[in-house]
């Protein structure tokens, strides 16, 4: 610890002695400064190595082994990966997750953008609305909200009664394999506040003069949205699409709680991470579970790459326009 302090004290002297130091001394001092920097970073580095990098390396190794938590891992090459494609429940988990991502993410973003457009206009009480719409994002990921969700989507609860009042009899969504996933979709869509706030920030940055010019030229509201707003906020849109997509792939908590830990009924909420959890921690197939985790990482990386590639076609950065 003592050395660290002197090192820090030394550093301001650097500039004054810059004129005529021996090159070796400079090098040494530079190295010392680096050392100080690393020392300051060490709590984070230790945490990263022990809690993130180390386990990730271990799980990469386990992915190629047969490992039941108790035995010594046995190297089996790509068997875990080939086994996935023969496993009907793995296929089901991919299907459920894909459905959740493909339905939930666009709905959430559409709602976020829609509400952001409404809130972008200056109105009385705007701050209140913004806070009100944002609030679900703060609490939505909590277990208690998932419990509440479970009860409002049960037989004869609010949702069932409201829909029955309008003549739609679905029963409780929570017990129905055809409906329960939409209960989870509703839960994520309800948390549209986070992307909404980002949209709002983007909307505020669209220069007013563009709209004024367009209005002069006789462009209607739809035209203004399509030709000015959308291109101008496309980087923000891209950002939201990316984040929400990546986030959706990792759904776990809500599926686990709403289905009362079973990820059912009939595997209807068997999202990818839920199956991973079951295999790893219930069935003690840790090798297979690790392989599943890496497969998810690959899939998300691939989707991300495709999105990045696609942005050439629809995202307009001002820096490139210049």
């Amino acid at each position, binding site marked *: 610890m003592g050395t660290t302090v002197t090192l820090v004290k030394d550093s301001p002297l650097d500039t004054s002695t810059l004129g005529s130091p021996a090159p070796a001394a400079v090098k040494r001092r530079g190295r010392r400064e680096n050392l100080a920097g690393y020392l300051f970073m060490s709590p984070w580095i230790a945490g990263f190595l022990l809690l*993130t990098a*180390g*386990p*990730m390396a*271990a*799980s990469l190794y*386990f992915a190629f082994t047969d490992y*039941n*938590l*108790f*035995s010594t891992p046995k190297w089996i090459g790509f068997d875990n990966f080939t086994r996935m494609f023969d496993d*009907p429940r793995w296929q089901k988990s991919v299907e459920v997750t894909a459905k959740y991502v493909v339905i939930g993410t666009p709905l959430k973003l559409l709602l976020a953008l829609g509400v952001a457009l409404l809130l972008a206009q200056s109105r009385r009480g705007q701050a209140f609305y913004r806070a009100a719409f944002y609030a679900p994002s703060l609490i939505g990921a909590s277990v208690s909200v998932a419990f509440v969700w479970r009860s409002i989507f049960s*037989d004869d609860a609010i949702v069932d009664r409201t829909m029955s009042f309008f003549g739609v009899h679905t*029963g*409780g969504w*929570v*017990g*129905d*394999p055809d409906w329960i996933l939409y209960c989870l979709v509703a839960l994520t869509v309800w948390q549209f506040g986070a992307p909404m706030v980002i949209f709002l920030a*983007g909307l505020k*940055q669209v*220069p007013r003069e563009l709209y004024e010019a367009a209005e002069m030229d006789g462009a209607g509201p739809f035209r203004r949205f399509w030709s000015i707003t959308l291109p101008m906020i496309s*980087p*923000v849109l891209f*950002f939201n699409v*990316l*984040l929400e997509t*990546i*986030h959706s792939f*990792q759904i776990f908590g809500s599926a686990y709680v709403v*289905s*009362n*830990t*079973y990820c*059912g*009924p*009939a*595997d*209807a909420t068997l999202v990818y*991470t839920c199956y*991973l959890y079951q295999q*790893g*921690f*219930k*069935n*003690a*197939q*840790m090798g297979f*579970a*690790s392989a599943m*985790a890496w497969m*998810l*990482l690959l899939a*998300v*990386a691939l989707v*991300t790459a495709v999105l990045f590639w696609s942005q050439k076609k629809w995202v307009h*950065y*001002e*820096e490139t326009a*210049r």
Partner: protein
Amino acid sequence: MGTGNVERRTILRAVGASMATLGLAATTGCGGNGGTSADGTVTIRYSWWGADERAKRINESIRLFEKKYPKIKIKTDFQDYVAFWEKFQTQAAGGNPPDVFQNAVGFLRKYDKRGILLDLKSQIDAGNLSLDNFREGVTSVGEVDGKQLGIPVGSNTMALVVDKKVFEKAGVAPETGWTWDDYFKALKTVYDKTKVPGDTGYFSIMYLYDLYLRQNGKAFFTTDGLGFDKADLTEWWTDGYDRVKAGIVTDPKVVAQDRPKSSVTAGHGASEFTWDNFTVRYTAEGDSEYGLAPIPTTDGRNTGQYLASLMLSASARTQHPKEVAQFIDFMVHDPEVGKIMGYDRGILASTEQYEAYKPTGEVDKEIAQYEEDTAKAGVLGKITPHPSGADTSEAAFLRIAGDMSLGKMKVGDAVNLFFDESEAAFQA
């Protein structure tokens, strides 16, 4: 123009950060310490599954133990059944299982194979733990492959728990020796007269199917696999699905919503096959009155029943085997503990506790009567062996039968899937 719009780099950074959170990995455990303090006080960890009611009784018993053995401190921990075994598995894999824990027959071979369980024979020989004074036949439950892996705290047997009010209203009275035909007719009568489905899903309960198989000279498990074939199960599940469709068995959608409550106590089913001591829980959980009825038979006599039991087991890695043995000995033999625990974990296993506790409540009295009647009828047999992986197979049986009964899976596919998953579990 260009008032600090979002830049490409910002997006990349944020994406990078959220990709990093994807790192799902497998690490467990933190080394256990010896649990001995400077003044020679020994601390042992004890965990079990159950609800608050059980926790209250156990904590009270522990206070008695600590008074008698002031040098031993007990640290407790409990969860519900599923969470308990998930946590236990992780702790055991990390080399840090609790010193003493509640156990059941389905887990003995699994954890013995992995070297987690202490063979208590050595402690019995050393005189720290006594296997004397147990009711007849109960200690054999904890005896596996020549080792004593668990000491029973209470015995229980599978029974039919009925909602007495609904059965009375329907005018149905189960009788000893009734057959499956009688039973299914009774379900229909109950449903026709009260509109309450008669049963909550008998075909998904491993322990009941075991009884049916035992009535027919088979069993659910052998020491290393399944004791029945695909044709047997196809018939069992096909009939079950038909009965769900007929309405005499509770709609599985409703069962899913009632969880973790039983559909019987939620008023959505008139009876359920489960362990006889569950009437204690059901009475606390539901509004009606719950009683016990005999298991239906194939030949008019043999129910296939046997005495099972909850046990206390010890970790092979405990640093204090002697103190652990003394603790188990106290918990299973001390009469005062018996009075505190009652029949919460089944009928008290040791004669000291069995004689000390005189059931006063209606529920406990009925459990005692039920096991006495069952024993008198001479139908109690030897317990079915449970291979390593039996717990996973049981969970798969429940889940797959549920999926099948929702009509989401053909019976044939469900049977194949169950056999595949069980096979994988036995080999794991």
